């Protein structure tokens, strides 16, 4: 009786837990706190945070409970992440939710989305310099794209072992956009530049919006074929939204499918951060490089907007360049907030949505390009 009780106690989480599990539980609880109390990306941080708690409850190896055991339920759910199935489904939902009209009204602003991707490639170089191999450096660089699904997709293809740290880094920094971006924006712009008012956007016709996903798919995916799973689904979702007659499909893509996949992705990515796999010096390197990547991407967008102003007749407010890092729509909101600190009557949100959305397309192309380089 006594030995039975002792055996049972030895198999409990209380006995098996070490300090690393405790650290990860604190991280998970912090995510949940930030999501619920601070409203930082709650739809992502709450499931990821809870997943971190689930993944760090110590379990007896061999019972098929851990996400890294072949026959466990969590492992089967995690296959959607490892096989790269979830990110394209999320992209379809994003496409079905997004109105591309601001981008269509002034397509030149798309270049800011491209400029912000420079951060991806600079971080890629930084990771190579720190000794990471090519495939891992590419996966780390894509954190600067500020697009969680894209980062997970590329990492699943190139460095599946790093999915946990990269996904957590990408989503953490996305949630921290309101903290990371404003100091860089203020540092790299003058007060006069922050006060620039944008030219009013023209009205975009419904036909234009319907044709855009078809043109976008053909042009982008013909150039960067490896971006097809992400961009194909993004544009498909958008066509469902704009085609009027497929409203039911759009509704399914932006609500039930997107919500279900977000839950599964959040929880399994969180659960994949088991302390013994996650708390490594490599993860620390990934977090540091991820933060640099975000900063460089923000700065690239801002500086490119200033360069564009040298040639444009109607000047653009360089703050909107910071929205090129994707992180839809948080970085556009940050642009609006920083712009309104200088002039409360200056509304930049709609204008910032153009580089913001093109940043999504740009980061998917960047991921496709990096993937095709490594194939």
């Amino acid at each position, binding site marked *: 009786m006594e030995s039975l009780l002792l055996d049972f106690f030895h198999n409990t989480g209380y006995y098996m837990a070490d300090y690393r599990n405790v650290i990860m539980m604190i991280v998970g609880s912090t995510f949940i706190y930030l999501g619920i109390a601070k409203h930082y990306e709650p739809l992502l941080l709450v499931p990821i945070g809870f997943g971190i708690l689930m993944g760090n409850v110590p379990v007896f190896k061999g019972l098929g409970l851990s996400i890294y055991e072949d026959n466990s339920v969590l492992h089967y759910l995690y296959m959607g992440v490892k096989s790269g199935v979830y990110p394209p489904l999320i992209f379809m939902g994003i496409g079905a939710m997004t109105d591309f009209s601001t981008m269509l009204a002034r397509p030149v602003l798309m270049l800011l989305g*491209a400029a912000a991707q420079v951060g991806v490639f600079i971080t890629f170089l930084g990771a190579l310099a*720190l000794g990471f191999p090519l495939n891992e450096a590419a996966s780390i660089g894509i954190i600067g794209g500020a697009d969680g699904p894209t980062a997970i997709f590329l990492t699943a293809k190139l460095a599946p072992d790093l999915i946990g740290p990269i996904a957590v880094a990408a989503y953490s920094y996305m949630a921290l956009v309101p903290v990371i971006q404003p100091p860089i924006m203020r540092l790299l712009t003058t007060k006069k530049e922050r006060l620039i008012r944008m030219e009013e956007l023209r009205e975009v016709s*419904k036909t234009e919006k319907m044709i855009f996903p078809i043109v976008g798919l053909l042009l982008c995916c013909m150039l960067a074929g490896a971006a097809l799973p992400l961009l194909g689904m993004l544009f498909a979702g958008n066509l469902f939204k704009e085609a009027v007659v497929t409203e039911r499909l759009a509704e399914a893509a932006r609500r039930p499918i997107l919500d279900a996949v977000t839950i599964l992705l959040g929880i399994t990515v969180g659960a994949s951060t088991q302390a013994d796999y996650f708390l490594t010096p490599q993860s620390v390197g990934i977090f540091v490089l991820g933060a640099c990547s975000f900063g460089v991407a923000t700065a690239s967008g801002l500086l490119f907007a200033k360069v564009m102003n040298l040639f444009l007749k109607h000047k653009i407010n360089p703050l909107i360049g910071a929205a090129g890092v994707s992180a839809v729509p948080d970085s556009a909101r940050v642009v609006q907030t920083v712009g309104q600190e200088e002039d409360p009557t200056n509304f930049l949100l709609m204008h910032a949505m153009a580089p913001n959305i093109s940043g999504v397309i740009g980061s998917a192309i960047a991921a496709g390009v990096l993937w095709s380089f490594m194939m």
Partner: protein
Amino acid sequence: MLGIQAISAQNGWQYAFLGVCIVFSGLILLSFVLAQLHKILNLWENRSSIGQQLRERWKKEAAPEESETLQPKFSSDLMESKQHFRMLVERIGDPFALPKLLRLATKSGLHRPYATINELLQAGIILPDEDGYYTWKQ
């Protein structure tokens, strides 16, 4: 191997430079095409009136005394809205209730649904029947 040496050994510079170039090329190409898209659409939507205007100009040149020009019956915006609303009517079936059409148009994100339905009513494209429903004039 670390630092610049590590980057060079793995062709990092080439990958990064090419990557940036491809991302820029993709978005520049897309941005250029999108900048022209509305112009092409305007041309396409006004093709009949452009044809008419050209014919009128030729006629004028041939017979300068005939100065009357034909105006297009509908603006290009209304023509486009008419097509979208016709698709919605096909979806809900003829005859249809106006509030239902309005609701569907709003849900589908069509531009100025109230004003457009009013214009379609005035143009006689949407006609009331005797049972309180409306029909689409083919």
